[in-house]
């Protein structure tokens, strides 16, 4: 089975080889493990891009293959980030509090300790007690389970309600936008239990690894992100091979016809929607410790729209297209908005890329949609046709 799967999908092997090579290259050039030509902050950027690629691959499966234009998958990404962030914040604050109370002659009781941690974390929103959703935050294992369970359950319930009522097309897209908007607005409130618009911060400090420099930690996350992208890619390629892939693509092209073949279309959509949400959650859990901070603005509707733009520019309906589009656009974006691109002086007006980048991105998106529906991935299709 394994063997025939890779034999049937040579593009998966090509992808894994490229990813492996890229990872190796970065490792050799990085500060902690090699020549030091790549700074720690750039390693973090690359690691984050890999996580974004993973969520984009999930988006491609749900949109490019199954035809569900979900504009809410970044909500699942954010939930994954919050879930792991809660443990990071709790464990780190606990260590700090224990240290500061260590000088006292009478050791603190468990309640005192708990109150001190809560005050430390929630003082910023005027609270001093742990909300209910932090019940498991002391346990890394439980919070890691949340990374999978919460996005999975949310997608399952949301998808069940939406697909069962046969909401499709643009209406479904609007519904998913509403979902991520509602979640973001809720989290913006101070009493949501997740520190309102302050979000969770200091996530780059990994409890238990205080002595390890960031350059090394960032390499660890970079490798983990690369591994997750590789595994996620293989998982989705497996799902999309054979009969399952056939049915999923058929649902995209004509779901009514698939029903008359005896397939329960809603179950398939629910399967795809939930699986991709879980992978998005995992990608988020790897992303935010590298970003260091998560706040509700991360899951604003625009984030999920970006996701669709990346996939469209890369070429939807091709898993590697999603990766190429995301890597290309998000790296370009950080170059333009980070002040890397020189401003263009037209004499009467200066184009400042930090402002005009969005205009450029929007225009490219429209151009790709109108003139190159296959996106960047189309180039590979042409190459493949040329050689065969």
């Amino acid at each position, binding site marked *: *089975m394994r063997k025939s799967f890779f034999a049937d999908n040579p593009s998966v092997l090509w992808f894994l080889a490229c990813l492996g090579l890229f990872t190796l290259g970065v490792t050799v050039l990085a500060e902690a493990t090699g020549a030091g030509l790549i700074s720690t902050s750039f390693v973090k950027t690359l690691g984050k891009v890999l996580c974004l690629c993973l969520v984009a691959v999930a988006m491609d499966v749900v949109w490019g293959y199954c035809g569900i234009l979900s504009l809410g998958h970044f909500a699942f990404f954010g939930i994954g980030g919050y879930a792991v962030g809660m443990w990071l914040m709790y464990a780190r604050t606990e260590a700090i509090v224990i240290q500061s109370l260590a000088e006292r002659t009478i050791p603190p009781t468990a309640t005192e300790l708990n109150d001190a941690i809560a005050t430390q974390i929630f003082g910023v929103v005027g609270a001093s007690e742990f909300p209910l959703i932090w019940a498991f935050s002391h346990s890394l294992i439980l919070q890691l389970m949340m990374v999978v369970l919460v996005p999975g359950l949310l997608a399952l319930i949301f998808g069940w309600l939406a697909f069962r009522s046969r909401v499709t097309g643009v209406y479904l897209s609007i519904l998913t936008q509403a979902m991520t908007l509602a979640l973001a607005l809720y989290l913006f409130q101070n009493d949501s239990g997740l520190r309102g618009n302050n979000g969770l911060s200091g996530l780059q400090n990994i409890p238990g690894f205080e002595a390890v420099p960031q350059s090394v930690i960032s390499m660890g996350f970079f490798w983990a992100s690369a591994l997750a992208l590789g595994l996620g890619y293989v998982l989705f390629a497996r*799902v999309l091979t*054979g*009969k*399952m892939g*056939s*049915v999923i*693509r*058929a649902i995209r*092209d*004509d779901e*009514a*016809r698939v*029903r*008359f*073949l*005896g*397939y*329960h*279309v809603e*179950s*398939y959509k629910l*399967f795809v929607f939930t699986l991709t949400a879980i992978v998005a959650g995992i990608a988020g859990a790897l992303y935010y410790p590298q970003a260091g901070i998560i706040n509700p603005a991360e899951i604003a509707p625009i984030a999920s729209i970006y996701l669709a733009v990346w996939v469209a520019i890369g070429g939807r309906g091709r898993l590697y297209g999603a990766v190429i589009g995301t890597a290309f656009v998000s790296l370009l974006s950080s170059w333009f908005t980070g002040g890397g691109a020189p401003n263009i002086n037209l004499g009467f007006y200066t184009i400042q890329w930090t402002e005009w980048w969005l205009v450029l991105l929007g225009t490219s998106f429209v151009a790709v949609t109108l003139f190159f529906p296959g996106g960047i991935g189309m180039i590979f299709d042409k190459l493949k046709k040329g050689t065969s």
Partner: protein
Amino acid sequence: MSTLLELSGVSVSFDGFKAINNLAFQIGEPEMRAIIGPNGAGKTTFMDIITGKTKPDEGRVLWGEKSINLIGKSESQIAREGIGRKFQKPTVFEDQTVRENLAMALKNPRGPFEVLFYRKSADGALRIEALAAEINLTEQLLRKAGELSHGQKQWLEIGMLLAQDPRLLLVDEPAAGMTPAEREKTTEILVEAAKTRAVVVVEHDMEFVRRLNCKVTVLHEGSVLAEGSIDHVTQNPEVIDVYLGR
């Protein structure tokens, strides 16, 4: 021959327009039946009701030995009960190969996890080969369905229908847009299928219906106007009035 499907007292209206009006219909197994009628007679709605696409306002649709009520079941459940449908416009999955199209239709468990862990079997491959031979598409198995001619698409759809191994086939205008030779082949396939199952053919083309050589039901304004052999119904004065014209 036992009764396979029975509709009784079925009515449905859309915005006040009675598309189907107190319709009664029966078909046995095996049997071939042709349904004719002028535009708006309710032929497509009739199929929509049987396949679960449209819910009737009243009436009963009973299926099989146990007389299961089909009303309220979903399209996919009804398809799994053993009712296959071919649409007027050939609807095959153009982006996929002929083999993939047939494999998807092949009678097998339909749940997502069963399909995810489905393994190609020699048995299934043989069945696909046999079907492809039957519908003249052996050479085309690896081509995308979108590249086929109109007639070949029609056959592929019939092939997918047969792959489902249904007990009842509902076929909407199978000969539309076909050359005479293709029509002949289509007739052959349908007559062969009707030896072991129930086949309902909706058709406009009288010549084609005559060649099927079966019982004919004439629909008019949502109910049955006449039933019998083709010669019997074409001589019925009412039928001549509403449908054939003088």
